[in-house]
C-alpha cells in the first residue's frame, strides 16, 4: 500500500495531462471497439437487414434476431464444436511446448557458452539424417547430397566463428530467427508432402508440431531479452550459496520474468489460435480449425456476414478471457520487481 502511494506521487499526472491521456486512450478505444460492435450487431441481423444498408442501433433501427446464432449453435452443433475442440487442443499444446522449449533455449543462449565440438558432431549427424530422409521422400539424390553437404558447411562455418570471437551465441540466435523469415507459402507444399508420407495429415500432431516449430523462434528471442534485464549478481549470489543452474533458473529467473512469460505465452497462443494458411493445407474435415470455418462462410452466394460474425464472436471469447487473466499477471510484474529491491 505504501509503495503504491509513493508511485502515485512520483508519477502522478496533472489534471490537464490526465485529460489529454484520457482523450487519447478514449479515441483509440473507439477505434478498437467500433469494428467489434459492428460484428456484434451484425450477428443479430437478418440477411435482409444487412443488405438494406447500414443500421446502427438494435431495438431502435432494427429488431434483433437470433437467426444466425440458432443456425451456428443449434443446427450446426457438431460442425461448430469439432473445429472448436481442435483449435483449443492444438493451440494450447503447441504454445505450452514452444514456451517450455523456447524459454530453456533462450536462457541457455544467454548464460551458457555453446560447446563447439559436440555441436559439430550433432550437426553432421543431423545433416546426414536429413539427406537420408530426403532421399527416402523421393527427392533425387544428386540434389539431396550436395544440399545436405552445403547445409552442414553453412552450420559449421557459422558456429566455428566462436573460435575467433565470442559471437557464436548471437549467431545461433540469428539463425533461429531466420527460420521465421521464410514465407509459409514457400514451405507448405513440402510440409504437406512430409506429413502425407508420415500418414499424419489431418491430425492434431501435424498441426501441433508445425505450430511449435513456427512459434519457437519468437519465444526464444523475446525471453532472451527479458532474461537479459535480470541482474546477474542475483544469480551469482545464488550460485555462491550452492544452488544448481537448474534451481537458479526455476526459483529466481522464472519468477522474475513472469511478465515476459505471460506476454509471450499470450502472443504465441494467439498466433496458433488464429493461424490460417498452414491449417488450410494440413487439415481436412477432422482436424479443421476455426479460422477455416470462418472463411468457409464465404459461400457461393457471397459472404454470409451474419454467420461469420457469430463465429468470430465465439472464437474471440476464450482468448479474451485468457488475455484478461494474464493481464492481471502482467500487472503483478511491478510487484515482483518491488519484492526484489
Amino acid at each position, binding site marked *: 500500500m505504501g*509503495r503504491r502511494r*509513493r*508511485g502515485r506521487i*512520483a508519477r502522478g499526472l496533472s489534471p490537464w495531462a*490526465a485529460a489529454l*491521456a484520457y482523450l*487519447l*486512450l478514449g479515441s*483509440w*478505444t473507439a*477505434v*478498437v*471497439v467500433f*469494428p467489434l460492435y*459492428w460484428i456484434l450487431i*451484425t450477428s443479430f441481423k437478418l440477411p435482409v437487414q444487412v443488405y*438494406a444498408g*447500414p443500421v*446502427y442501433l438494435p431495438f431502435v433501427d432494427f429488431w434483433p434476431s437470433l437467426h444466425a446464432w440458432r443456425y451456428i449453435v443449434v443446427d450446426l452443433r457438431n460442425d461448430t464444436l469439432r473445429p472448436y475442440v481442435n483449435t483449443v487442443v492444438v493451440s494450447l499444446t503447441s504454445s505450452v511446448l514452444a514456451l517450455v522449449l523456447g524459454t530453456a533455449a533462450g536462457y541457455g543462449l544467454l548464460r551458457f557458452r555453446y560447446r563447439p565440438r559436440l555441436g559439430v558432431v550433432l550437426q553432421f549427424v543431423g545433416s546426414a539424417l*536429413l539427406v537420408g*530422409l*530426403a532421399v527416402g521422400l523421393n*527427392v533425387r539424390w544428386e540434389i539431396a547430397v550436395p*544440399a545436405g553437404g552445403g*547445409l552442414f558447411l553453412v552450420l559449421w562455418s557459422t558456429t566455428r566463428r566462436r573460435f575467433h570471437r565470442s559471437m557464436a551465441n548471437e549467431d545461433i540466435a*540469428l539463425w533461429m*530467427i*531466420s527460420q*521465421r*523469415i*521464410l*514465407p*509459409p*507459402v*514457400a*514451405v507448405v*507444399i513440402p510440409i504437406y508432402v*512430409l506429413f502425407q508420407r508420415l500418414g499424419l495429415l489431418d491430425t492434431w500432431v501435424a498441426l501441433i*508440431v508445425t505450430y511449435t516449430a513456427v512459434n519457437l523462434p519468437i519465444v526464444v528471442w523475446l525471453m532472451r*531479452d*527479458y532474461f537479459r534485464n535480470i541482474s546477474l549478481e542475483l544469480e551469482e549470489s545464488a550460485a555462491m550459496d550452492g544452488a544448481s543452474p537448474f534451481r537458479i533458473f526455476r526459483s529466481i529467473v522464472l519468477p522474475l520474468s513472469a511478465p*515476459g512469460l505471460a*506476454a509471450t505465452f499470450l*502472443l504465441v497462443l494467439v498466433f496458433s489460435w*488464429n493461424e*490460417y*494458411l498452414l491449417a488450410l493445407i494440413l487439415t481436412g474435415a477432422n482436424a479443421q480449425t476455426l*479460422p477455416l470455418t*470462418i*472463411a468457409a462462410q464465404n459461400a457461393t452466394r457471397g*459472404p454470409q*456476414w451474419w454467420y*461469420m460474425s457469430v463465429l468470430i464472436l465465439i472464437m474471440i471469447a476464450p482468448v*479474451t478471457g485468457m*488475455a*484478461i487473466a494474464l*493481464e492481471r499477471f*502482467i*500487472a503483478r510484474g511491478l510487484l515482483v*520487481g518491488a519484492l526484489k529491491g
Partner: protein
Amino acid sequence: MLVFLSIFPLFVSLYLSLTRLEFVPGGFALRWVGLANYRKLLFGIEREHFLGLLAGPSPVQRVALGVIAIGLVVFLARSLRRPERPLAGLLGRSLWAAAVGAVAWLLARTLLPGGRPGTLVTTLTYVGVGVAVQYGLGLGLAVLCAQQIAGRRFFRVVFLLPMMITPVGIAYTFRILMDLGKGPFAPVWRGLGLAEVSWASDPWGARIAVMIGDVWQWTPFMFVVLLAALESQPPELLEAATVDGADRWQTFWRITWPQIAPVTATLVLIRIIEAFKIVDLPNVLTSGGPGTATESLTLHAFIAWRTLDIGGSAAVAYLLLLVVTLAVLAYLRLVRRRLTEPT
C-alpha cells in the same frame, strides 16, 4: 524434428522453384527448367507484375537518383579512408551500397508518374509504413497505460482485443466496414459526395485500406510487449530520477528508453519479418486488385500456387526470402551498432 521441419522444406522449395509442373497422362510431373522462373519474374512477361511498370527517364528522377548515387559514393569513400578496415569490409559495404541503390532505383522508377509499382514495391510500402505506424501507436499507448491513472486495466484489456481475432475474420470485418453502400460509414461517404467513387478502384486508396486493417490488427502486438517491458523496469530507478529533479521527458529518454531498447529491437525485427508475409488482408479485402495494386509478395506467390504454377510460386517465395533476409540483415547492422555504442 523441429530443425528438420524448417530446413527440409527450404531445399525442396528451392528445387521446386527451378521446375515447372506439367500434366502428363496419368498424373503430373515436375520438369527441370533451370532459372526460367526467375528470369520470367525479373526480365520477362511477369516483370510488370513483380517489379512494376518502369517510368521513363525524367528530370526529377535523374536528380533524385543522382543525389542518392553521390551519397553512396561518399559513403564508400569514407570507408576507404579508414586504413584499419580490411578489404572484406569494403566489399561488404559495396554490397550494401548496391542493395540500397537498387531499392532507390526501383522506388524512383515505379513511384514517379508514369510508373506503376509491382508487388515488390507494394510489399515494401506495407512493411515500412505499417511497422512504423504500429510502433509509434503501440509505444504511445503503452507509455500512457504504464502511468498511474484510473481505469488503465480496462484500457489494457480493450487494446488487446484486435489481436485476438483471426486475420481472416478481421479481413472480412473490414470488408463490410469499408463497404460504401452497406457499411456503417455509408452516410459519411454520401455526405462527402464520394459514394460513386470507390476506394477499391483507386490503387492508393486500396493500399491505404489494407494498411489501416493491418495497423488495427497489429498495434496491440507492439502494445502488449512494450507494456510488459515498461512494467518490468525497476521502479527505484524512476523514483531516483524524479527525486533528482529530472522531468518526464528526460526520465523517458535517459532511463526508460535504454531499458526497453533491446525489446524494441527484437519487436520491430519480428514485426518486419511478419509484415513481409501479409496475405489475408489484401486477399479478402481486394483480392489484390485493382489489377495487382494491393498484391503483396506472399499473395503473389499464393495466387501463382493456386493456379498450379508451383515453380513460379516457389520462385516468388524465394525472392521474397532474399528481400526479407537483406532487410533484416540491414536492420540488424543498424541496430547492433546503435545498441553497442553507448555501452
